[in-house]
């Protein structure tokens, strides 16, 4: 059994999805889905442990050896991301039953769990697989499930947002497909490890550069890098709140993982350096994303949109980490993968609680929320402090490493820019806090969020603080992964 863990990681949610279809009642479907996602977490944990003990795990699907067959390849980076995705997936699932009660009509609720599990399976598959076409397939699985999930939102604009995301996402996936096609025509293999071995000899081939370009653009569309981020605010704002929470904490992280995988493992760091100042482009776009998105976030009246733009800014930070081009920079990005999942997971779950009580996340509903929903607001404050990067929270740790990486290169303007970004975050968080704690609320009576929503939210919020102080696990994992990707460590 243990040797089959890599494939089980994907199969468990994938098979659980149609099984949910058979269970017609919402509550039964929910319980089953919870079990499936918890099993996924356990598997991820075991995989991390195994990789730590034995090194890279390689699993051949159907007994066909790589590079002819499809290989599932779990190294430290994959295991790390798998843990993040499955962990968030399970936590969100625990809260899902309550969160969708007002947003999705009862007869469609079992279908919601089917879609959720399919999305989870797709995301896990992207990370677990070592075959490049398999990546495309799972990417599309998760994307299709995502489009359908977003369209479940109550507001009719959710349909339009889902449609837009579908168009953009399909273009992105098709670009990736083109890239894969070029690579295949050049090397004859679809296995990522094999590609990595063959590509250095083809370094000056125009086809390889074209493939690289298509792949990069396709992935950047998926990861909402500025200026390809325009689908994200609408999609996050109008989707059901639990969907936003799940996606914000996982989907873009997996896309960043894919970027790192292509950039470091398959093509090698210096690949495009002779043709394109790729790292400078990443730095520029990342910084632009941070500033533009933060500035727009400050003016949003809908809090979900506010945090959606904030997510674009945080993704900008991750790209800056890659753009710095050192192991420390990459470690900062990897740490931020983990930390952002915790931060945005907590924030969007808290927003789900607000939506549950008020029906929308407009900032007017936040007036006086500090007295009426104190625990939910406490979570938002903690998440907000983490976004700003106050020491004692997890956000500080990733900012620290980012600044450390910039400092190692003596890039002072970058350090100042990163810290200015933090100050912008202070502005939009503070707006929220002020309305919540110091404005009089409207007369509608409202109680604190139900426990089933509050507990997963609190867990994530406490994780923000815990991992901000006890940083051993994420720092160790990200450090080893970064070293390995740069070809230094084991």
């Amino acid at each position, binding site marked *: 059994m243990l040797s089959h863990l890599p494939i089980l990681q994907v199969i468990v949610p994938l098979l659980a999805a149609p099984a949910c279809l058979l269970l017609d009642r919402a509550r039964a479907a929910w319980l089953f889905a919870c079990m499936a996602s918890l099993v996924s977490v356990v598997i991820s944990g075991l995989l991390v442990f195994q990789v730590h003990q034995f090194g890279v795990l390689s699993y051949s699907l159907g007994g066909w050896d790589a590079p002819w067959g499809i290989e599932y390849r779990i190294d430290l980076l994959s295991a790390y991301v798998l843990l993040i995705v499955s962990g968030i997936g399970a936590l969100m699932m625990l809260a899902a039953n309550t969160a969708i009660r007002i947003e999705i009509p009862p007869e469609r609720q079992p279908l919601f769990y089917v879609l959720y599990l399919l999305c989870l399976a797709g995301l896990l598959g992207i990370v677990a697989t070592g075959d490049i*076409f398999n990546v*495309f397939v799972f990417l599309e699985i998760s994307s299709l499930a995502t489009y359908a999930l977003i369209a479940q939102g109550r507001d009719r604009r959710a*349909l*339009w947002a889902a*449609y837009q995301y579908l168009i953009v996402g399909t273009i992105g996936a*098709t670009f990736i497909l083109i890239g894969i*096609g070029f690579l*295949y025509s050049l090397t004859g293999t679809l296995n990522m490890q094999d590609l990595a071995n063959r590509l250095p000899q083809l370094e000056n081939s125009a086809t390889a550069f074209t493939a690289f370009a298509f792949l990069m653009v396709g992935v950047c569309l998926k990861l909402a890098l500025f200026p390809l981020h325009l689908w994200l605010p609408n999609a996050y704002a109008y989707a059901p709140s639990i969907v936003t929470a799940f996606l914000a904490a996982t989907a873009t992280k997996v896309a960043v993982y894919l970027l790192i995988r292509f950039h470091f493992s398959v093509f090698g760091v210096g690949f495009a350096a002779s043709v394109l100042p790729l790292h400078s482009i990443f730095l520029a776009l990342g910084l632009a994303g941070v500033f533009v998105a933060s500035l727009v976030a400050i003016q949003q009246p809908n809090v979900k949109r506010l945090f959606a733009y904030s997510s674009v800014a945080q993704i900008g930070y991750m790209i800056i980490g890659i753009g710095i081009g050192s192991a420390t920079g990459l470690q900062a990005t990897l740490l931020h993968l983990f930390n952002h999942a915790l931060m945005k997971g907590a924030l969007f779950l808290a927003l789900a609680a607000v939506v549950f009580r008020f029906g929308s996340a407009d900032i007017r509903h936040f007036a006086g929320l500090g007295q009426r929903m104190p625990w939910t607001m406490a979570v938002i404050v903690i998440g907000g402090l983490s976004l700003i990067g106050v020491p004692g929270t997890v956000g500080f740790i990733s900012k620290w490493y980012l600044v450390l990486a910039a400092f190692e290169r003596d890039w002072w303007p970058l350090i100042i820019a990163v810290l200015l970004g933090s100050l912008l975050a202070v502005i939009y968080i503070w707006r929220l806090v002020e309305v919540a704690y110091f404005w009089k609320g409207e007369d509608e009576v409202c109680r604190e969020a139900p426990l089933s929503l509050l507990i997963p939210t609190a867990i994530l919020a406490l994780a923000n603080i815990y991992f901000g102080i006890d940083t051993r696990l994420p720092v160790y994992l990200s450090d080893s992964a970064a070293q390995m990707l740069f070809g230094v460590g084991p």
Partner: protein
Amino acid sequence: MLPELYNYWVVIVLMMIGFYIVIVQGNLIKKLIGLNIFQTSVFIFYISVGKVADGSAPILAEGVNVYSNPLPHVLILTAIVVGIATMALALALVIRIKNAYGTVEEEELQERDLQC
């Protein structure tokens, strides 16, 4: 160069047509058509790359020594299925949008959103 690489030219032309339609067209259905053309161009690309000179169809048969590469065919079958699923989902979304907004034209959609 030109005559031998005609397949790439077809691919590029189709890809650009499809892309152009997606971006420029305001009608949601037409956008999907453009998307479809765009995806199809990629399928053609793969399959045409898989052709081996003097190779026949990749089905085992007596007396045939050179086969075209079957792998791209397999990949494209998968991609076609993905494309169909995407199209089905997209069309379902368009129907829902039509029911909710009463139109499938992009500009009218945005107008009606602004009115609300």
